[in-house]
């Protein structure tokens, strides 16, 4: 227990310790700038931060509606007997290794994208977003499912007694009741998508630039860390990866703390019903 607390603190401490020279040494402007040319001393990570954000948002934009559809299917929009096999399958999908999504995408999707859009290399924002959305889909379904489950027990009998069909219950009772939870699921899913490294590294192309179209190459903070460690460059480049790590750590932590706050705000009200 103590170890688990200590390791969270240790991770934060280490990252801060290595990122500190940036903040103390007045290189702040250089790290938070738009140019990545490590051999000319320009180590800006802002393009990567934008890349991370854009990729996570687009992947969520694709995966969330699908996830919501699947959850609706399981909660009344689809036939009841399909519910268990469907959710079982979704559970199973969470066990597929990320690197396999990446591998199949490199072999299958990248040439496909290149074939459809000959001006692109295939390693692009679009390819990464499609792959990543399939990868986070099962997680999102389970997150939404957990939120719906909490409300479902409370309202199902009541709405059935009022003459709602299962499909109507989902659309006009369950969905609106769980709307806050649905937001929470979306934000958590976003933080999962933000943390992915391997798919971005394998299929996004990794050019350190702000993309102008879906077909442009894109580099995320996570992939940036992996690339710089692999290619052993200048000490300032190293500082940029600790800054990247710190950003990722702080964003995911902030998201979790905020959601915890929100949910503990709703919990007492929920326990009255």
């Amino acid at each position: 227990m103590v170890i688990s607390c200590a390791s969270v603190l240790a991770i934060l401490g280490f990252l801060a310790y290595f990122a500190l020279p940036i903040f103390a040494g007045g290189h702040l402007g250089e790290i938070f700038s738009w140019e990545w040319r490590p051999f000319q001393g320009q180590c800006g990570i802002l393009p990567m931060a934008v890349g991370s954000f854009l990729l996570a948002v687009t992947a969520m934009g694709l995966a969330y509606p699908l996830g919501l559809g699947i959850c609706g299917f399981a909660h009344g929009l689809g036939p009841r007997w399909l519910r268990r096999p469907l959710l079982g399958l979704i559970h199973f999908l969470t066990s597929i290794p990320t690197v396999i999504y990446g591998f199949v995408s490199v072999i299958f999707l990248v040439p496909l994208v290149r074939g459809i859009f000959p001006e692109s290399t295939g390693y692009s924002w679009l390819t990464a977003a499609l792959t990543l959305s399939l990868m986070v889909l099962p997680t999102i379904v389970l997150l939404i499912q957990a939120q719906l489950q909490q409300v479902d027990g409370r309202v199902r009998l009541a709405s059935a007694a009022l003459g709602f069909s299962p499909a109507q219950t989902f659309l006009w009772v369950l969905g609106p009741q769980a709307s806050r939870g649905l937001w929470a699921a979306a934000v958590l899913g976003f933080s999962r998508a933000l943390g992915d490294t391997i798919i971005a590294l394998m299929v996004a192309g990794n050019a350190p630039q702000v993309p102008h179209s879906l077909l442009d190459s894109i580099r995320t903070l996570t992939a940036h860390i992996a690339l710089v460690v692999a290619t052993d460059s200048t000490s300032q480049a190293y500082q940029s990866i600790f800054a990247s790590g710190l950003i990722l750590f702080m964003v995911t932590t902030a998201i979790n703390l905020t959601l915890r706050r929100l949910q503990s705000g709703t919990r007492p009200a929920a326990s009255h019903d």
Partner: protein
Amino acid sequence: MIKRLTSLAQACSWLAVVTTLGLVLLLLGFLGLRGFDALNPALFFGKTPAWAAITARLPVWHGIWPACVGTVTLVLLASLLAIPLGLASGIYLASYAPGPWKRWFALAVELLAAIPSIVMGLFGFALILFLKKTLAPQANTCLLLSAGCLALLVLPYLILMTQTTLEALPSELRLTGLSLGFTPWQNLVHILLPAGGRGILSGVILAVGRAAEDTAVILLTGVVANAGLPSGILGKYEALPFHIFYLAAEARSDAELAQGFGAALVLLLLTAALFLGAYYLQNTLAKAWKQKDLLI
């Protein structure tokens, strides 16, 4: 109007399910078809005779055997570090922790679970840089470091699974032992742990699967493309997920690509088997307690 909206929503949900199923079938089918052809002894051992390779008398070139051994060693080492800690913490949280502490500990576990795996790898990498500067100039990324970081990565899953399993046991069970004069410790060892064992075990299996598939952590902490069998816990090593990652970028021939498919299929079969095992255990646990509920 309402009827129309309802059927529109139903159509959309069918569409979502069918799209997802189609994509998943495409993914698995593609992998299965291409990988199945590659599944043979040569995939694992290359041109080395199988028995000589297994007993490590001859090195294996052009095979995934060293990567398999690397992954298994890595996972075993990580489990060795994470399982005792995870179970102890979970039990503490479920049975012993006083209220306010419990809240803080639970928060710490939640935050640890939310850390992206690459940040965990970066932590290990920073640790080595730190050691190089201070205590041990010759320190380098290695198998032990990767196992340590992977252990940190799966620790929150273990803690949460143990805690929720124990807390989900019927409260009669908890009270019966205590009312018969068991000490809390006896109650835990003789009643609660045997009753929740399957749930905890399935948590362990899921954590093992998570450790086996992670690529980002080992990428920063010592995995390499060509190391042969792991030489020791302070040496470099190969691992299956990294091997697949490497082949996706560097495969130069059809044979190497086929090896990539073979390796991907092997890894998928491994994680799928672990998942199904855990799923089975959880189902039997749920069934066991449902029947007990009827009896009471």
